[in-house]
């Protein structure tokens, strides 16, 4: 059966991104680099050299030293690693952490932080989840209070939120943590390559990066660990990455990661402005054409390409699937799409009602998106919302437009 090729629009860059053509070419060229980077012979040295080049690229992009960057299997692994440092309270452990002190994080973190934190509580650590305001900004005063009151060992706050795009003031939060003797980690998976990230300007001790969110390959990330900060590996049993992460390096992934970062350095600034313009165009169209919508997240302190919007009276999975039929890829904070019964923990933490959370979709734009795509999608979203509202018990048309 012959199928007409459907127009496809990818608006889900916070989930993952396609490979940058330059990254693809670099990986293709490196396909024959097979030596074990730990081997002393020429095959190994060849792989080692490429990994170290990538390390330099990643380190310089965020203002770190090469000895402060080590490669891991994913952003989730990096985050799990950081949270595993604290509850490790073996008396003679190399990491020299004295005892299981309190950990502070937020209610809007990625599940890999939330679940790790919950796991820590089962191991005897105390964890506090900070509230956020209606825009998703972390409560400063609450952090101040808990730092003054309790013996906090680590504060972990994500730099930019994956669902609503809200950007935290990491510099201030990190300073606050340090004033009270706590270490500071930020999950910058959504931030790196989209907004300025410099570990020294931010003053963080740990920072998480992932390659596949910035047009690099999947299965590789990096963790920045400030020199002299106590550290304990999550995966042990090998001297790779200077003993900080055992396991033979994902050479191809790391090479691609390095290239992806290099391309970000060239492209991100111009892209930030372009995506912001596209987002505003989309936001204006949707506000003009569709009644009863709400935008979620911070109106200005927000990732340039991220737009989270709720349509009252309709459910997100239905919107997502109707748009998928039109070739448009978005994601949703609705419960039904996730397989759980609860809608987005991020939206609920900002205090929006369950209905608004169920009816939300996240549109995340990227480097290949165009104004034409935005206009096409805006038109289709309007049609889909009208159709779904027409069959919804939860939507009453106010007045038909003249």
């Amino acid at each position: 059966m012959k199928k007409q090729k459907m127009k496809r629009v990818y608006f889900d860059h916070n989930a993952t991104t396609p490979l940058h053509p330059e990254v693809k070419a670099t990986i293709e060229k490196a396909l024959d680099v097979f030596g074990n980077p730990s081997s002393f012979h020429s095959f190994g040295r060849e792989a080692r050299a490429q990994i170290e080049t990538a390390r330099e690229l990643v380190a310089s992009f965020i203002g770190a030293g090469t000895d402060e960057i080590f490669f891991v299997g994913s952003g989730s692994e990096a985050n799990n690693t950081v949270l595993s440092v604290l509850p490790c309270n073996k008396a003679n452990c190399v990491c020299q952490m004295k005892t299981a002190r309190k950990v502070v994080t937020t209610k809007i973190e990625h599940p890999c932080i939330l679940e790790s934190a919950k796991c820590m509580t089962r191991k005897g650590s105390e964890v506090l989840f900070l509230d956020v305001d209606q825009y998703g900004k972390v409560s400063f005063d609450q952090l101040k209070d808990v730092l003054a009151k309790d013996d906090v060992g680590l504060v972990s706050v994500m730099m930019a939120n994956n669902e609503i795009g809200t950007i935290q003031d990491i510099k201030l939060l990190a300073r606050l943590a340090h004033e009270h003797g706590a270490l500071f980690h930020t999950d910058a998976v959504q931030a790196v390559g989209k907004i300025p990230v410099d570990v020294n300007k931010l003053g963080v001790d740990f920072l998480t990066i992932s390659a596949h969110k910035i047009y690099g390959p999947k299965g590789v990330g990096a963790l920045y660990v400030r020199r002299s900060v106590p550290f304990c590996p999550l995966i042990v049993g090998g001297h790779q990455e200077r003993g900080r992460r055992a396991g033979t390096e994902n050479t191809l992934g790391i090479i691609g990661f390095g290239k992806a970062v290099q391309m970000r350095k060239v492209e991100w600034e111009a892209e930030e402005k372009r995506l912001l313009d596209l987002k505003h165009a989309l936001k204006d169209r949707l506000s003009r054409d569709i009644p009863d919508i709400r935008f979620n997240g911070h109106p200005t302190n927000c990732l340039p390409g991220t737009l989270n919007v709720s349509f009252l009276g309709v459910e997100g999975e239905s919107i997502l699937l109707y748009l998928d039929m039109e070739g448009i890829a978005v994601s949703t904070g609705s419960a039904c799409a996730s397989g759980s019964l609860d809608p987005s923990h991020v939206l609920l933490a900002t205090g929006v009602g369950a209905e608004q959370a169920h009816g939300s979709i996240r549109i995340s734009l990227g480097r290949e998106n165009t104004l034409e795509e935005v206009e096409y999608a805006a038109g289709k979203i309007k049609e889909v919302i009208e159709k779904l509202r027409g069959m919804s018990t939860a939507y009453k048309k106010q007045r038909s437009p003249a």
Partner: protein
Amino acid sequence: MNDWIYTDIVKDHFMHPRNVLSDEEDFQEDGRGMVGNVKCGDQMMILIKVDAQKHIITDCRWKTYGCASAIASTSVLSEMVKGMDIEQAYHLSPKDVAKELGSLPEHKIHCSVLGDKALRAAIDDYYDRSGQKDKIQRDEARIICQCMNVTDHEIEEAVLEGARSYYELQEKTKIGTVCGQCEGDARRILEEFLKKHFSTS
């Protein structure tokens, strides 16, 4: 394109829903039922017309707020009941609906459950309006676990939300976690609901 998690029939009913109540339409229903709520992510309303002489449902309209499986379930149900004996319609189960749709993913079965509940509510409303209150079958919840105050309805909910073993049921409902006397009853009811909703025979 790769396959959806849904069958083609679900997709068809989702994309082309039948018998949706339109705002312009003047549908004079004999019974109306509404169940679920928007907070939980799905809500359904079913309107029926009944031929009182022949005891059959002659026409049906609906509205649904919910995901693809909720919309498809109501749509297919609205087709199934047209021309159906009202007593027979009263006893349609979520499994009948899922079967008509060619199956639903397991974690979506609970979305289709509201459909037959809404239909029963509509039939109850018809019975009420037509002076046949005696036919309304009140579905009273029965407390199984006295300590934690867990009812058979809650066991059914838990099953539909994914509990497959007694342990998982306990995780969801805390049933039998105090004195443990109800374990036998709870296990038996769990089996019944598993059979009702998930057995293929």
